[in-house]
Every structure is written in structure tokens, then in C-alpha cells.
């Protein structure tokens, strides 16, 4: 088995455990490269099927290419899609781009809040999210099955033990579980896998006029960087050489030390 084979097998195992343990399961789909790779893993785990709905939290500030890509895949693959939006905040223009909020507050209003509302409205007892340990310091300490409290909060000091492929899945009424099948993958692994499996991703990842996106987010807070990579193999080669961090283009992380941890503790992915 190659390293990618091992990562794939582990993710499939986790996805199947999740499907067994939870009555009402959904998958967060950000339309980024990680969740597209994850969708491929889901179809492998369930032999071609996607046996649960996908949830997209739409801030209304996503580049149009992402929404077009999303809607096309939903059509072509017959996926169940649930879209969550914070309509009151959008109507009131209570956002960072409108100048009324800091970046981190805006993330809370347009991402964390509608995520909480959507999970509650759908009655999910678990949602699958494509986070990875190598993305960021607090995600490095995550669990495959990570409980969230009644208020969607993450109690980082009281994480359950998890070893030998055994996971705690029941945390009592009102709580839900975030399932993280990609925890052990790195950014490079994801691209190697996209290359190997021929997985389709949004065109924004490929360089145009010498710049490309490395991580997709809302356009007001996500920058591009200098790159000549226009194909998946070129992205793989570029990542093998770079020392720039993946989330370097995400402005909300840099707002203050601990900003990202605070976001995550209150229910962000």
C-alpha cells in the first residue's frame, strides 16, 4: 500500500463508522479541494452512493465560479444539497464588506451562525467536515469524532480519548459530533490524490495571469498568490517546494492571536 492508499483506507473506515453510528448524518461541503476529495472518498466508502445530504453554508460572498461548480455537481451526481444562509444579517448588511463588522465577527455571523441554525433545523446528530491537522495549530489537536456542545461549542480541554480505531460517538442529548475523516492528510496529499483520482476542482485553484488561489473562501478576505501552476501536476510540484502556509491568504486568521481558536471554539469548522 502506498501512503495515499493508507490515508484513503483510514478515511473510508471513519466514514463507514460515522454512517453506522449516526441516525441523521450530513456532510459540510465548502466546494474547496478538500471537500471535493472527501466526496470522492464518500463514494468509495459507499460503493458509488452518497448516502447523506451535503450542507453548504453560503455567505453570499463566495466567488461565482464556486456556486456554478456546486450547482453543476449537484445536478450531474444527483446529490442532496442543503444551503444555509444568515438572511437577516445579509439583508441588514451587517457584514465586514459593508464596513459594519470586523472580519472575525463577520465569519461568526455569516458562517458559524447559519451553520448552527442549519444543523439545528435539520436535526443532525453528526456532520462530516474536511479539516486537516496540518492546516493550523488547533486543528492539529483535533479528534476524528469531535463532540460539540449544546451551543455548538468545542471544549478543547476535555476531548475524549480516541485510539486503536475506537471512537466515542455518543455525547448525550443536544450535542452533535463533527466527524473528520481527512485529519491525517496534508495539503500536498490532497493534491496528489486529486491528481491520482482525476478529481474535478474549481478553476480558481489554477493560475491565471500569474496568480492563483490556494485556499478558497469569501472573496473580500481571501487573497491570491503568485504562481505559474495551471495544472494539478504543476500545483503538486509547487507545493513540494513552497514554505508559504496554506492559510496565509486568509485574512481573518491574522486579525489577532487566538482569533482562529476563538472562531473554532464557538462552532466554526
Amino acid at each position, binding site marked *: *500500500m502506498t501512503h495515499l492508499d493508507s490515508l484513503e483506507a483510514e478515511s473510508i473506515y471513519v466514514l463507514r463508522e460515522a454512517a453506522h453510528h449516526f441516525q441523521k448524518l450530513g456532510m459540510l461541503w465548502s466546494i474547496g479541494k478538500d471537500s471535493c476529495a472527501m466526496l470522492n472518498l464518500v463514494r468509495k466508502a459507499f*460503493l458509488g452512493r452518497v448516502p447523506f445530504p451535503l450542507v453548504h453554508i453560503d455567505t453570499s460572498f463566495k466567488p461565482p465560479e464556486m456556486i456554478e461548480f456546486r450547482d453543476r455537481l449537484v445536478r450531474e451526481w444527483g446529490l442532496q444539497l442543503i444551503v444555509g444562509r444568515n438572511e437577516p444579517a445579509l439583508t441588514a448588511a451587517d457584514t465586514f464588506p459593508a464596513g459594519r463588522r470586523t472580519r472575525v465577527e463577520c465569519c461568526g455571523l455569516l458562517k458559524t451562525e447559519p451553520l448552527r441554525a442549519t444543523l439545528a433545523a435539520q436535526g443532525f446528530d453528526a456532520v462530516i467536515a474536511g479539516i486537516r491537522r496540518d492546516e493550523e495549530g488547533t486543528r492539529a489537536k483535533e479528534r476524528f469524532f469531535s463532540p460539540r456542545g449544546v451551543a455548538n461549542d468545542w471544549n478543547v480541554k476535555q476531548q475524549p480519548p480516541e485510539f486503536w480505531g475506537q471512537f466515542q460517538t455518543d455525547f448525550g442529548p443536544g450535542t452533535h459530533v463533527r466527524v473528520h475523516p481527512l485529519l491525517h492528510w496534508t495539503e500536498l496529499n490532497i493534491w496528489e490524490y486529486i491528481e491520482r483520482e482525476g478529481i474535478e476542482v474549481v478553476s480558481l485553484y489554477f493560475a491565471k495571469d500569474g496568480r492563483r488561489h490556494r485556499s478558497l473562501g469569501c472573496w473580500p478576505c481571501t487573497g491570491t498568490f503568485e504562481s505559474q501552476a495551471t495544472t494539478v501536476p504543476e500545483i503538486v510540484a509547487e507545493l513540494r517546494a513552497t514554505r508559504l502556509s496554506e492559510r496565509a491568504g486568509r485574512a481573518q486568521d491574522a486579525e489577532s492571536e487566538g482569533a482562529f481558536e476563538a472562531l473554532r471554539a464557538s462552532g466554526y469548522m
Partner: protein
Amino acid sequence: MPSAPPASAAPLRLVICGSVDHGKSTLVGRLLAETGTLPEGKVESVRAACARRGVDFEWAFLTDALQAERDQNVTIDSAQIVLKAPGRDIVLIDAPGHEEFLRNMITGAATAEAALLLVAADEGWRAQSRRHAFLLGLLGLRRVAVVVTKMDRVDYSAQVFRDLRAEGEVLLGALGLEPFAWVGVSARSGAGVTSAGPEMPWQNATVLATLTACAPGAAAAEAALRFVVQDVYRQDGRRLVAGRVESGRVSAGDAIVLWPFHKDATVASIERWPQPGAQTAGVGESIALTLAEPVFVERGYVLSHPSAPPAVSNQLHASIFWIAPTPLALGAEVRVKLGTQQVAARVASLGRAFDPGREMPEQASAAEVPPNGAAEVVLQLHAPLVFDRHDHIAALGRFVLLLGARIGGGGIVTQAEPAVRLATKSANITESAGSITAAERTRRHGHRGAVVWLTGLSGAGKSTLARGVERELFARGSLVTVLDGDNLRRGLNSDLGFAPADRVENIRRAAEAARLLAEAGCIVLVALISPYRADRAAARRIALEGGCDFAEVFVRAPLAVCEQRDPKQLYRKARAGLIKQFTGIDAPYEEPEDAEIVVRTDEVGVGEATELLVAEIVRRTRA
């Protein structure tokens, strides 16, 4: 077109452990920085975080990412971070050293292939160093190097290093650990981390050289096949048995055995998406397979080849560690989760319970397993479990202990003698096929054979109902009989008592006897309290595997009603303490969740209940 470079090789997974404040996170930070692993700007952001707190530069902040960790200068949870070492990536798992976070250390260490055990030169071997060393052994980590940190605090003294090494060799040797390297370092000055430096002329080792010398472990490719079933998916009329190859290899066409029920079958195909791919699968692969025969399979089953079966038993001998906040006492009820199997269990014997931080196993003294302690135990299981010895097939030789829904501990299997009755099947026994077919029997009797399993509390009316139904069906010309729990205990089961293991066996024999009769075309009414769901599920499987229909009938009446009826005066005796482990009083009754038929004997009379049951049985056994 240039040829694609090889995809990422598997990184070595290495845990850094040792007592709190012995410099684990600092060493990890140093290693990351000196190997050029860190992304641009990372050191600067840590420098800014330190300045805000008014402290000197903290290497530990590189992995101690949580605000609480930085504020208190202690690692709370294991971080995993990739180190770009010469030749290969290494995943460094920075484990917390604080006693309160032992469960997080285990969570990190259990995924590692090798370990660095750190001990501070100025403090020496502490209780938590010993606990971590003990756990490394129990987790099966044999490749361990010891790093003596904070050498700057003892003026880089060769004597201090040698004394700690001498003491450590005795301590670790008693736990079966032989470190492959000993290195002295100062993560603050950098001496011994990636270069030897002039401070310690008495050594030329470095931590980085030690890490890169540690080769990844070989997979257990040659071991016997163990395929653990996670789920069965129905797709296009096929049953796809989904699971993981935990050891060995499985191929289409293989003759296999389904455990714990010892059912023979043949692998028809290996399934993957989008293409089925090679019709063979090796260690670690998550696949699905189909079977040639229409045998019953469900989550928890283990597949092996006939020549190398696992052990199957109601008893488990194991070494365990305990990380729940309250002690584990003799007689405690827990659940064992091994692979995808889960069974209720009782701590039947407790030997050598000790705190590995303070005592050696031979000094064991405790009457219960303390939090963060360890013990040798025998677990009495309420249903048969499939397993192997941990040093034979690791994946089937380790388990967790559940206390309610929480993981309270873990353990490794130390004995795996195949249970004679269940696990050994002589190669000289072949099933003889009868010449009279089921269809012929059905024509003769005018109905099909079936097992009707009546479960419920003592006094709920199982026997009364069974006898009434038997009389009615007999009057209609059916071939029918009753297997009554009390009667069975006079003959077939006269050697069994009421301990959990005996109850399990009592039910297994009743189910096997019922199956034989049903195969002969008889409608068999089994009247047995059968309080555990797992046992009733086992009875169902036995019947289904014999090709017999099975219906579970929940004969339901509230405990108070049963106690008031008390036809055999058993509740009175149980309340007086004359009978122990009486179902409903001091032993549990697990109500059926999916019984085919529920009869409320507190609401309907015997006549009506009998009529209802007869109608249902006639419908199910119609020719």
C-alpha cells in the same frame, strides 16, 4: 512530458513523551525550526505572541497553539505536526506530560510507530516518566529512544547523563523496553538537537540523527486473514459486506469462515468504486466483498481462512490501563469494544492492579484499578467475542473498555486459547446433507418449521402462553412442541448455573436444540426469560443460519404485575436475598427493541393472547 515524481512516502509516526515540564514541546519546536519545516512567518508570529505575554521566546508555542496552553505553559492535548527530516517526513506527536491529560497522551501515542521518551537532567525520572514508559510497552511501541533534556541545567555533565541512563536502563528493562539510543540535549541552546555542538564532547549523537535512523515498521503482511465487518450495504439486490482487512489477504474464490458463529462461506467477489479492481485485498484495505452463499452476516463478524481461525470465547484475559476518573473495581460492569464487536462484560478477576507511576507490576497492591492505573484482568463476557493474542495479530488483540458511552480504558489480550466448543472444528467433520428436503417435510406436516422465541420477565406468562398455543396448534394438526427454560435446566442444561456465562450457554443450547427440531419441520415454542439482547440476537442467528424462520415474541408485563403474580414465589425469595442475580430485581432485563410480536399480558387475557399468537404463527409457517 516530464515523468511525475513519486507520491509522498509514508511518514514515520513518532511520539514525544515524558513527564510534564521535561521539555517536550520545546524540543519539538527546535526541531521544526532547525530543519526548515516551518512556514514563512511562523517564528515571527510566535515571537510576537511571546512579546505580548512578556516572556522570552518560547519554542513550545509552535505546537502549544491553544491560548490556555500558552497562558499556563503546559501542553493540554497532543499536537501532530510534520517534520521535514533528511530523507523522510516524520509526524511528530507532541504528547502532554501532565497526569491530568494522560488520556490525550494515549490518544497521540497509540498511532505512533516509535517514541522518544524525554527525561529532564535536573529532575530525573518522575512518576509520569514511568507511567509513559509503561504505556509505551502496553501500546506495543518497542522502538524507543531516550532523550535527556535540559543538559544546560547540569552544566552538560557526563556523569549526570550516565547516572540517569543507568537508572533508566533498570527501570525500562523491567517493563521490557530496551532503548535503541540515548541522547543528551539542551533544546534552549540547541546542543544535541540537530548538531552535536561543543558543549558535550562526550557524545556525538543528535536527536535528528536518531530520528532519521529509525526506519518505518513493516506491515504484518504474512499474518493470518482477519476481515472485520463494519456494515452490510444492500445494493441492486446484492449484499455488500463492507469492512477492513486487519491482517493477511483475502481473494475472490477463498473459502472463509464467519466468526463467532463458525459459518462456512466462499468469497464471490471483491468490490471497490468506481471499479471492482484486483480481486484480492491486503492489510489495511477498506473494501467490500460479496459471498457466494446466502449466509447471514452483520457488523461485528470476523472473517478468517479455515486453516487459521481466531479464538472465540466468553472469557478474555488481558492487561489493561484505566483512564476514567473513578477506579475500576472487581465485579464492575463494562463493555468491551474490539474491532467492530461490542459486548457487555464483568470484571471477573483482578490481578496485579497497580499505579505504573509509583510501583512495578510485581509490587501490585491495589484491590481496584486506580485512575491512570493498570492491571491484569479476566473479563467475563455476556456474549462470545472473536479475538487473537495481541502479539499474534495486534488489530484483533486490543480493545477499549466502555463505561456507559465513554472510553474508560484499553487493553491487550494476553491469552487466546481457542474455546474448544466454539472455535475448534475438526477437519474430519463434514456436514451430512439429509436426503429429505424441507419442501417434503412441509408437504407432510402442512406447515413449515419455525422457532418462536418467547422472552419476558419471570411471571410475565411465557410458559402459560406457550402451553396454550401448543395445545391450539396441536388441535389443528400441527407438529409443535415447547422448550421451557425450567425443563431444560433439569436435563440438557443441568450443569449450568445463573452466572452471566452460564446464562449465555443456557440460551445457546436452547437455540441449537430449537433449530434441530425446526429443521425437522416442527414449530418450536421456546419459553425462556433470555434477558440480554445479544443472546436473543445470537439465538436468532442460529435459527436463521439453519434456514429456519425465527420470531421473537415479547411477553410483556410490568415488573410490579409479575411480582404480584409471583407464581413460583421467586420474587419473594429474591427480595429476601435468598436468590441472587434475579432478573428484574438485581439483574437487568433488556427489553426487545424489534420483536416481531408484542403481547401485553397485563392488558389482554390468556385466551385473546393465545389467539393472537396462533394467528401470527399460522401466517408465518404457511406451506
